[in-house]
């Protein structure tokens, strides 16, 4: 594989991890978040600082990165208990801008210069490059998909689905909205933290602009285009949103036109996303796999 394709595939795999985390919050628990890039950034900055300042290896730092990101996710998930829908969307956008500004303006985080010199991930003495690092990302993606799949099958997931559908009714069957919203935020942001750590060690240089609001929109687009609330939707979305700009590169002046058209077509013909309920892909799958819920 050429270096270009490996780089593209690695970015897509990392985005798929982060989008899957966002899907837990938005798709499973129904809490809109337009600030997911902030948690991606918190994961990346934590990993970068631990690697460059404290000299920790990727593997030693990873648990700390995930726990810290999830903890911040828990704190910033608290607004979701008080505000809903449009207001929550705006609150999460605000979180994104605040986190980006902190990274950009505090010397501790490298300020506008960002953080460079992040080492490659090493397994024993082998430094992972190119395809090897891609395999590492795909392995983590597999773990994330397995976790998300498990979540849809366990009672915690069912409680989140109930919350997403009808909060008052969910509370009437014993689902604590506080507990399960925060649970979704913690799981979703932990996955963003994992993606951030991989991103930092892949790019080896990060700056605040990498985690700005447009990335949050991009991540949410992946979830929506692929199929919100489905297991494989965010992965398909990450692939499409990752590949399309490359395919349309010759038409770069018309890129926004293509995006807009794509979005309008999605809303008109596949409102549940490409893998959503009643989507064309799902109907074909149902015909191939009779009786099975794909």
């Amino acid at each position, binding site marked *: 594989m050429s270096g270009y394709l490996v780089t593209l595939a690695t970015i897509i795999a990392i985005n798929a991890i982060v989008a899957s985390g966002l899907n837990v919050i938005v798709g499973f628990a129904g809490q809109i978040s337009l600030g997911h890039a902030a948690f991606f950034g918190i994961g990346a900055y934590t990993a970068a600082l631990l690697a460059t300042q404290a000299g920790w290896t990727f593997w030693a730092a990873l648990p700390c990165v995930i726990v810290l990101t999830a903890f911040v996710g828990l704190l910033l998930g608290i607004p979701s208990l008080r505000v809903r829908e449009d207001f929550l969307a705006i609150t999460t956008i605000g979180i994104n801008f605040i986190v980006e500004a902190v990274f950009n303006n505090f010397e501790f985080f490298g300020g506008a210069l960002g953080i460079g010199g992040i080492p490659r991930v090493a397994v024993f003495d082998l430094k992972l490059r190119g395809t090897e690092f891609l395999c590492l990302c795909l392995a983590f993606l597999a773990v994330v998909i397995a976790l998300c799949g498990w979540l849809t099958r366990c009672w915690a997931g069912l409680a989140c689905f*109930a919350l997403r559908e*009808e909060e*008052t009714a969910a509370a009437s069957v*014993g689902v604590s909205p506080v*507990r399960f919203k925060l649970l979704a935020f913690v799981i979703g942001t932990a996955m963003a933290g994992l993606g951030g750590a991989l991103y930092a060690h892949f790019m080896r240089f990060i700056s605040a602009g990498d985690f700005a609001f447009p990335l949050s929109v991009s991540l949410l687009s992946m979830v929506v285009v692929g199929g919100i*609330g489905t297991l494989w939707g965010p992965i398909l979305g990450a692939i499409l949103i990752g590949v399309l700009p490359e395919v349309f590169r010759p038409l770069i002046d018309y890129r926004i036109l293509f995006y807009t058209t794509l979005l309008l077509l999605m809303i008109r013909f596949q409102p549940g996303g490409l893998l959503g309920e009643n989507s064309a892909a799902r109907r074909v799958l149902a015909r191939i796999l009779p009786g099975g819920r794909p």
Partner: protein
Amino acid sequence: MSRPLLDISGLSKHFGGLRAVDGVSFHIQPREILGLLGPNGAGKTVCFNLISGVYKPTAGTIAFDGRRTDGLAPHVIAGLGIGRTFQIVKPFAQLTVLENVLAARGIHRYPHLSKVWSRWRTPAEKREALGLLERVGLAGLAGRRAGLLPLGNLRRLEIARALAVGSKLLLLDESFSGLRHEEIAQLEALIRAIRGDGLSVLLIEHNMRVAMGLCDRLVVLDHGRKLAEGRPAEVRADEAVVEAYLGRKGSAHAA
């Protein structure tokens, strides 16, 4: 007389200057069907929301099974064994009928973070949930998406969901409205069977024939206050009740 299952005393809920419920007291005995009646805006649904914890009372106390419950969160109150339906139905629309009931069967797991990581789609759980759907006559629609059901079926689905939660008391908010004649007869039989299982039922009902025939006792509210209480025959003869519903004799504003 045995200790009441639900004991409401001096219950008030004010929204700004509006006294939606104003000093209401009543109780429900175990195995009793109590009807909550009253004209529109009398405070019946607000009463339900106070009992189930959706609202916190401005004043007064609610005791369930000997324990104060006013001020507790809705999911905690549900966990004590109070199931409820909603006047404006609130199904989990994207889930199937079966999944709606299964979600309610998690009631005793949701409070413990250690118990929510096991599978919910087990044969035993499915059997139990199907049994509840059987009782309300929806077993044939178990795989259907709840959002696609007509209103009458949604009301029955909410009863099945409430049955999964309410081991002691069911609150049914206008469950009969929108049902056809034969469905009403089925639902009446179901509510009597539920009482036969040892549950108490508190129901809000506008259909007088149903309320009079089904309930052991009635409580009539008007403008947030208790107007009358007693057996159906007593309440029917109560002048204040007739006045609240039909207006004062000879009044220019009579309905």
